C-alpha cells in the first residue's frame, strides 16, 4: 500500500498484515461503522504510527487486532494475519496465548490502567505467570528485573507499592514493563504518553524505542500527535473517518502529503509549525463566518465595533503571511498600554496532612510576579504541579494567597470582599480545560451563555437574548444552537460556547486554563485563531495557561515559564523560543515532539 514492491523477502519480514478490516459499534440507532476497510502492515522491528483525530477509528483499529473490543463492537469483515496465524478466526482461548506473549498493549491512560488494589510487582508477574514464563516462586523476582528494564528506579521497592503511590510517569513505566515482560514481537502502544508531561513523555518514548530496537520488537504507535509520529515512526498511516487516507514512509508523508486531510493535519499540528508566529497571522479559512474580519490592530473601546487602529508595536497582528513579524513584540508594556492586572510576590502554601513531626506545608506558588496588559496574552507554561493553575486561581481570587499582592485594574484586590469581589469577578472570566465538563448539561446553550448576564442582572430578557445572539455570532456558532444542549455539540463547539460565556460581560481579562488541550489538532487551531481574533477586536487580555509550548507560541505575546512554583524565565515569546536562557526552558523546548523534523 505504500506503493513499494512487495517481493519475497519483504513478505517474509511482514509481521502483521491487516486487510480490509471493518469494525462497527452497536448503538441505539443500529450499527455505526467505526473502521471501514483498513489495510495495515507492520514489518519486524519496525515502528509504524497510526495518526488521526479522535473518532478517526485509530484506537478501534489497534484494539481490533487483538480483539480487545467492548461487547458492543463487532468485526464485520477483514483479516488480521500475524506471522502465519489468522487472528480473526481464533477462539478466545487461542487468542489468550497471543495476547501478552506475542502481541502486547500499552494502554492510553496510566492513571487508570493499573489495578488499583494490586501491587505493581504482582501485576507485572501476572503476565509471566499466565504464559508460564516463570514459576510461582520466581515470578516476583523476574518481575522486578523487568521493571528495571522498563527504567523504573528502585524496582524492588516499586514492586511492593500500589499504583496510587507512583507518579504518572512511573505508572507508565510499569505498564511498559507489563508489555515487554513476555518479550513480544509486536507492541501496540495506544497513545502511550499523551497523559504525561512533555519531558516525561520524551524520556519514556526514548526508552521504549531503545528497548524495542535492542530486542527487534515492532511497535504499532497510535497517536493523535503528528509530532510524536514524526519523531518515532518509520512509517505513518493517516486515518480519517475510519479509513486510511494515506500511508507511507514518515519522511514522504511529512514532505509530500498527498491527501488533503494529511495536509490539513500537518498544517494544524502546532509542534511541526514551530516557526509559525501567532495564529492570527497564519489563520486562513479556519473560521468561516469570521474569516472576513481584517487583521486589524485595534484596541477597541468597550463595545462591539473596533475603534480606529492604534498601532503601537504590541497587539499589532501582522498582515497575512508575514511570519516573523512578531520579533518586535516583546518591547514590553510601554507606558502606552493599560495594565489590566498584576500580581506581586505571590505565595501560596498548602498545609499537608499533618503526620508525626513538625507541621509541613507545600509551597505551590513561590514569589510570583507578573503584569498583564490590555489586548495582550501572557502565557504561564509549566508541567503538572508547577503551580500555574494555582497562580491563576489566586489572580481570580478563587483562593487566597499566603502572601503577596494582587492588583486589578489599578485597585488592590488582595483582600477584596463582597461587592468589590463581585465586580472583580465581572471583569475577569475563566475558560476551563474540559469543554465536556464545564457546561451544565441540563441548560440550553442560550441559558449557558446568558447566565453571567442574569447573575449580574444585565439588561432585560430581550436585551440578553440579543446579546447571546451577538456572542454566538462572534464565536462563529450558528444562531440555531441557542436552544440545543451541550451534549449535542462537538468539543470545539462547546469550547466556543465557553468562550462566548466568558465574553458575555465584556471582561478585561480572560484566564484560559488549558483551553485547547482537550481538543483535536485541527479544532485546536480554529479555537486558537478565534481567541486571537477576539483579542484583536475586543482588546481583551488573556492569561493563557498551558503545558504545550507549541500552542503557547501561537497565541502568547509573552511567556512565563514556571517550575516548582517559581517563574524561572519570563520574556517575549519569540525571544524565549529562539534564545532560551534557563536550563529548564531549554529542556522543555527540546521535549516538544516533532522538533527534529524541522519546520515546514
Amino acid at each position, binding site marked *: 500500500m505504500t506503493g513499494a514492491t512487495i517481493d519475497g523477502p519483504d513478505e517474509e519480514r511482514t509481521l502483521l498484515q491487516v486487510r480490509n478490516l471493518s469494525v462497527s459499534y452497536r448503538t441505539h440507532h443500529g450499527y455505526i461503522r467505526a473502521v471501514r476497510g483498513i489495510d495495515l502492515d507492520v514489518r519486524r522491528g519496525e515502528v509504524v504510527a497510526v495518526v488521526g483525530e479522535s473518532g478517526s477509528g485509530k484506537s478501534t483499529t489497534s484494539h481490533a487486532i487483538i480483539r*480487545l473490543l*467492548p461487547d458492543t463492537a463487532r468485526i464485520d469483515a477483514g483479516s488480521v494475519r500475524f506471522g502465519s496465524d489468522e487472528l480473526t478466526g481464533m477462539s478466545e482461548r487461542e487468542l489468550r496465548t497471543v*495476547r501478552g506473549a506475542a502481541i502486547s498493549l500499552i*494502554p492510553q491512560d496510566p492513571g487508570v*490502567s*493499573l489495578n488499583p488494589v*494490586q501491587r505493581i510487582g504482582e501485576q507485572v508477574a501476572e503476565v509471566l505467570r*499466565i504464559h508460564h514464563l516463570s514459576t510461582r516462586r520466581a515470578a516476583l523476582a523476574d518481575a522486578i528485573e523487568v521493571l528495571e528494564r522498563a527504567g523504573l528506579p528502585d524496582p524492588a521497592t516499586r514492586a511492593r507499592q*500500589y499504583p496510587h503511590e507512583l507518579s504518572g510517569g512511573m505508572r507508565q513505566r510499569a505498564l511498559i514493563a507489563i508489555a515487554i515482560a513476555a518479550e513480544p514481537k509486536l507492541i501496540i502502544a495506544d497513545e502511550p504518553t499523551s497523559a504525561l508531561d512533555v519531558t516525561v513523555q520524551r524520556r519514556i518514548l526514548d526508552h521504549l524505542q531503545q528497548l524495542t530496537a535492542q530486542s527487534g520488537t515492532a511497535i504499532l504507535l497510535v497517536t493523535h500527535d503528528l509530532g510524536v509520529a514524526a519523531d518515532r515512526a518509520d512509517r505513518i498511516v493517516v486515518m480519517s473517518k475510519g479509513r486510511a487516507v494515506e500511508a507511507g514512509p514518515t519522511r514522504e508523508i511529512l514532505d509530500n502529503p498527498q491527501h488533503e486531510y494529511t495536509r490539513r493535519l500537518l498544517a494544524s499540528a502546532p509542534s511541526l509549525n514551530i516557526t509559525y508566529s501567532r495564529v492570527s497571522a497564519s489563520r486562513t479559512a479556519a473560521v468561516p463566518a469570521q474569516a472576513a474580519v481584517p487583521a486589524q490592530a485595534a484596541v477597541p473601546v468597550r463595545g462591539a465595533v473596533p475603534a480606529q487602529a492604534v498601532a503601537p508595536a504590541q497587539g499589532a497582528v501582522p498582515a497575512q503571511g508575514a511570519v516573523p513579524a512578531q520579533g518586535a513584540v516583546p518591547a514590553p508594556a510601554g507606558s502606552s498600554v493599560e495594565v489590566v492586572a498584576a500580581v506581586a510576590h505571590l505565595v501560596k502554601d498548602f498545609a499537608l496532612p499533618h503526620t508525626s513531626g513538625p507541621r509541613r506545608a507545600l509551597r505551590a506558588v513561590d514569589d510570583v510576579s507578573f503584569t498583564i496588559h490590555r489586548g495582550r496574552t501572557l502565557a504561564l507554561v509549566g508541567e503538572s504541579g508547577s503551580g500555574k493553575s494555582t497562580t491563576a486561581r489566586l489572580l481570580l481570587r478563587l483562593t487566597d494567597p499566603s502572601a503577596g499582592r494582587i492588583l486589578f485594574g489599578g485597585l488592590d484586590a488582595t483582600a477584596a470582599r463582597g461587592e468589590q469581589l463581585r465586580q472583580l469577578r465581572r471583569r475577569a472570566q475563566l475558560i476551563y480545560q474540559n469543554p465536556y465538563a464545564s457546561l451544565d448539561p441540563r441548560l440550553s446553550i442560550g441559558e449557558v451563555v446568558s447566565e453571567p448576564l442574569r447573575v449580574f442582572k444585565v439588561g432585560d430578557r430581550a436585551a440578553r437574548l440579543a446579546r447571546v445572539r451577538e456572542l454566538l455570532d462572534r464565536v462563529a456558532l450558528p444562531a440555531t444552537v441557542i436552544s440545543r444542549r451541550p451534549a449535542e455539540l462537538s468539543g470545539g463547539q462547546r469550547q466556543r460556547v465557553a468562550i462566548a460565556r466568558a465574553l458575555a460581560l465584556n471582561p478585561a481579562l480572560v484566564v484560559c486554563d488549558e483551553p485547547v488541550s482537550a481538543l483535536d489538532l485541527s479544532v485546536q487551531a480554529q479555537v486558537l485563531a478565534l481567541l486571537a481574533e477576539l483579542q484583536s477586536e475586543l482588546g481583551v487580555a488573556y492569561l493563557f495557561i498551558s503545558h504545550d509550548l507549541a500552542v503557547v507560541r501561537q497565541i502568547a505575546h509573552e511567556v512565563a515559564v514556571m517550575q516548582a512554583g517559581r517563574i524561572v524565565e519570563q520574556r517575549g515569546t519569540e525571544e524565549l523560543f529562539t534564545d532560551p536562557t534557563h536550563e529548564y526552558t531549554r529542556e522543555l523546548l527540546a521535549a516538544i515532539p516533532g522538533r527534529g523534523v524541522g519546520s515546514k
Partner: protein
Amino acid sequence: MQAVGVLWAAYTVSFFVLYYLPGDPVAAMFGGGVDSTTVSPAQLAELRHQYGFDKPVLVQYIDYLGKAVRGDFGNSVSTGRSVTATLASALPRTFALAGLAMLLSVLIGGALAVSASYTRRRWLRQVLLSLPSLGMSMPTFWVGLMLIELLSFRVGLFPAFGDNGLRGLVLPAVTLAIPPGALVAQVLAKSLLAALDEPYVQTAQSKGASRLRIHLRHTLRNASLPTLTVVGLIGGQLLANSVVVETVFSREGLGRVTAGAVTTQDIPLVQGVVVFGALVFVLLNLAIDLAYPLLDPRIIAAPGSRGAIAGAAT
C-alpha cells in the same frame, strides 16, 4: 466517639417513645385487664414505686441512664430476671442463627453476582440479575412457611421446629439469609459489571488473562467495597428479621425475647434489646471500617472517617 453517640441516641429515643406509649406496664404484668379483686390499687402503686415508675420522667431517665452506663438495665417487669441475664441467655442461639445467615447471604449473593457478571450470555445474565428482586420481594415469614412445608413436611430433610443442633439451624438460617443475600447479589453484581468496563480490565485482557482470572484477581476485589458497606447494614436487618424467623420456627432467642417483651410492654427489656441492637450495629460497622483498608490500599484507616472512605471508594 461516634459509636457512643449512636448508643446514647438509641437509648434515649427508645426510652421516651416507650414512656409515652399508652398502657401501664405494671398492669400489664398481671396479664392485660387488671382484675381488681386480686391486685389492689395500693399494691399497684407500690409496684410502680418499686420500679420507679412514679417519679418524674426526667428523673427516671437519668436514673436508668446512669445504671445503663454501668451495664445494668434493671429487671424484666414480666419475669423479674435481670435484663442483662435474659439477653445473655438468648444470645448464643440468635448469634448462631444470624451468623450462619450472614455467611449464607454473602456466599449465595456473591456466587450469584459473580456468575451474572461472568457469563457472556445476555439472557442468562438477565435471568440471574432478576433473581435478587424476586428474593427481596418475598416476605420472610412466607418463605419460612414454604420451606417448612416443602423440606420438612414433604421431604423430611430438616426439622421444622425447635433447636435441634445444626440440622435445625439450616432452614431458619436459609430463610433469614434470602433478603440480605439478594441485597448483596444486587449491589455486588452492579459493581462487578461496572468494574468490567474499567481500563485496568483491558490491561489484564491484554496480558492474556482469562475471564475467570479477571473476575477472581481483578474485578472482585475492586467491586467488593460497596458490598462490604451493605454487609454492615445487613447486620441490623438480620437481628430485626430474627423476630419473625424465630417465631415461625419456634426457636428460642433474641427475636423471641423481643417479641415477648413488646407484647407485655416490658419496658426495661425492650430498652435492653434496643441498646443491644445498636451496640451490635456499631461494632459491626466499626469492624467493617477497619476492613476497608485491607481491601483497598488507597483507604487509610482513620476512626470516624466514613465520609472519606466512601469518597475514596467511588
